[in-house]
């Protein structure tokens, strides 16, 4: 199978510019610099490159939202916050193939007439931040970044900006506030970042993987990229499989690969010979699936059709014998901890959900608590500045809908049938 990103990831030298260039690296940049800008954007559109950060917005279309007027400088922000539980793919790109990202940034910036890019990386990724700094330095030294790139007259500076421990900063407007040196509070939209973003300038925010796909698209053409995936979701995806599988890890597979195959073939099936109990298919914010639901194509539209999402590509596998109430408790603790507190329904709602699920798990659940969870969820939907509120509701509702009997049993027996542990 053809791969876009990971072909050389086993090679330790690949993170340095010389090895990257030996494998054809930066030839796409050279090619792009000789192309009309609109044509690069057109290739990205043809590629059906959907944002890999979670929302799946078509990258080429987003780029088209920049105002036509070039008098105000524009900014590219790469989202390397990678905070969604179950997601660990961008870290792989940054540590094994940082020049893919740097080259993608250079091409994308040229196509959008952007002269400054910030890579916003989560604060915990200290090592990855250093690798990126080193890659940026190497690219500068070779003339792939900086002034007059490869003699084209195009200038670009790239800076690494470290976050400081806040999941919400992965949300693009929160990220922009954080980049500006503020608290990571999401902003109301509109205005969208493409109109008014970082430092008041038109800004495009894209995920690490999204931008890293761009060199391949320019080198091989958008149509070929599109053809690797399915109708509206082109290319491959980096899919991280974690939890109770024999071979956890990141797998690069075509968009639309069967979810069962991801778990049983690629990730080697369920650990310790156990049965599957549940799958959270696209990072912790995506609705949980029962074992009977996993014969599905892992692409944006197919997953939406079954009421879930491929999100940020993090498949979390829950085995038989694991308590679903406890799993939800872990997630609700997380969301209540990470709510930025600006909107009452989210601040109060995530707190309530955490509290109710905790008391059920601790054997102190009250009659009516399950209905209360669903009630709280209803009040959290569609009334908030950013989608974090909904991100908490999706697991809460789906866990209750699909594993109701476990919640009821906890309340009836006034204890956790699994002994309060995983």
């Amino acid at each position, binding site marked *: 199978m053809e791969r876009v990103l990971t072909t050389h990831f086993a090679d330790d030298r690949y993170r340095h510019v010389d090895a990257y260039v030996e494998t054809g690296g930066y030839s796409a940049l050279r090619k792009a610099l000789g192309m009309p800008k609109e044509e690069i954007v057109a290739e990205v559109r043809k590629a059906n490159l959907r944002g890999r950060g979670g929302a799946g917005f078509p990258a080429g279309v987003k780029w088209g939202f920049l105002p036509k007027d070039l008098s105000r400088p524009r900014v590219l922000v790469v989202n390397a916050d990678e905070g969604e539980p179950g997601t660990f793919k961008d870290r792989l790109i940054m540590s094994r193939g940082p020049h893919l990202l740097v080259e993608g940034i250079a091409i994308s910036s040229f196509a959008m007439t952007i002269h400054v890019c910030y890579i916003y990386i989560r*604060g915990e990724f200290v090592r990855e931040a250093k690798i990126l700094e080193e890659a940026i330095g190497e690219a500068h030294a070779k003339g792939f970044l900086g002034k007059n790139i490869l003699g084209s007259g195009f200038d670009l500076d790239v800076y690494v*900006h470290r976050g400081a421990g806040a999941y919400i900063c992965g949300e693009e407007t929160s990220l922009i506030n954080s980049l500006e040196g503020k*608290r990571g509070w999401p902003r109301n939209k509109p205005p969208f970042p493409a109109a008014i973003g970082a430092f008041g300038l038109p800004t495009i925010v894209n995920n690490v993987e999204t931008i890293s796909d761009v060199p391949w698209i320019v080198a091989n053409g958008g149509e070929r990229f599109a053809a690797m995936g399915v109708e509206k979701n082109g290319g491959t995806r980096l899919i991280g499989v*974690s939890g109770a599988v024999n071979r956890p890890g990141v797998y690069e597979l075509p968009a639309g690969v069967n979810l069962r195959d991801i778990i049983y073939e690629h990730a080697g099936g369920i650990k310790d010979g156990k049965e599957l109990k549940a799958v959270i298919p696209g990072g912790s914010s995506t609705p949980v699936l029962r074992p009977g639901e996993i014969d599905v194509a892992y692409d944006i539209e197919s997953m939406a059709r079954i009421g879930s999402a491929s999100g940020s590509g993090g498949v979390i596998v829950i085995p038989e014998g694991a308590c679903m109430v406890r799993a939800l408790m*872990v997630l609700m603790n997380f969301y209540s901890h990470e709510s930025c507190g600006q909107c009452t329904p989210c601040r109060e709602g995530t707190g309530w959900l955490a509290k109710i699920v905790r008391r059920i798990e601790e054997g102190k659940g009250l009659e009516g608590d399950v209905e209360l969870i669903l009630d709280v969820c209803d009040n959290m939907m569609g009334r908030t500045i950013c989608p974090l509120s909904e991100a908490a509701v999706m697991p809460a509702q789906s866990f209750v809908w699909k594993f109701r009997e476990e919640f009821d049993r906890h309340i009836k027996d006034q204890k956790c049938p699994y002994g309060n542990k995983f």
Partner: protein
Amino acid sequence: MSVAFSESARREFDALFSRYPDREAVILPALYIAQREFGYVSGEAVEYLAGLIGVSAARIEGVATFYTMYNRKPVGKYHVQICRNISCSLLGAEHLIEHVSRKLGVKPGQTTPDGKFTLSTAECLGSCGTAPVMQVNDDYHENLTQEKIDALLDRLP
């Protein structure tokens, strides 16, 4: 009320200002420099940065308290942060947290009396494929077992 940043830190501040169209954007990186220099972000460091950047101390204070990675009081020589999110929990992180807590004799959020270790729980560290995971200062330790943690913590000087 004055703190002494090193010569190299002062050079870093200058370089930072040139990266952004707005001076306030250096607040996050500058707080990291303060933390590196003094081990935590002290009130004096906040005052200094406020003067340097040209904003109120309250403005910096508001940022420093929003983010979990800025320590507002001294932490142990080793800050041990164990992920407690879903993928790590499924593979035994809860037991590891209990184990380390017993071993060090402190609860999450506390520092050992000798100042050597601070124990914390962390939310997903973005390394779920090698769960369970912990971070000790800047370094990740992956595929943890009780034995691995013991060997590591016992070895730290």
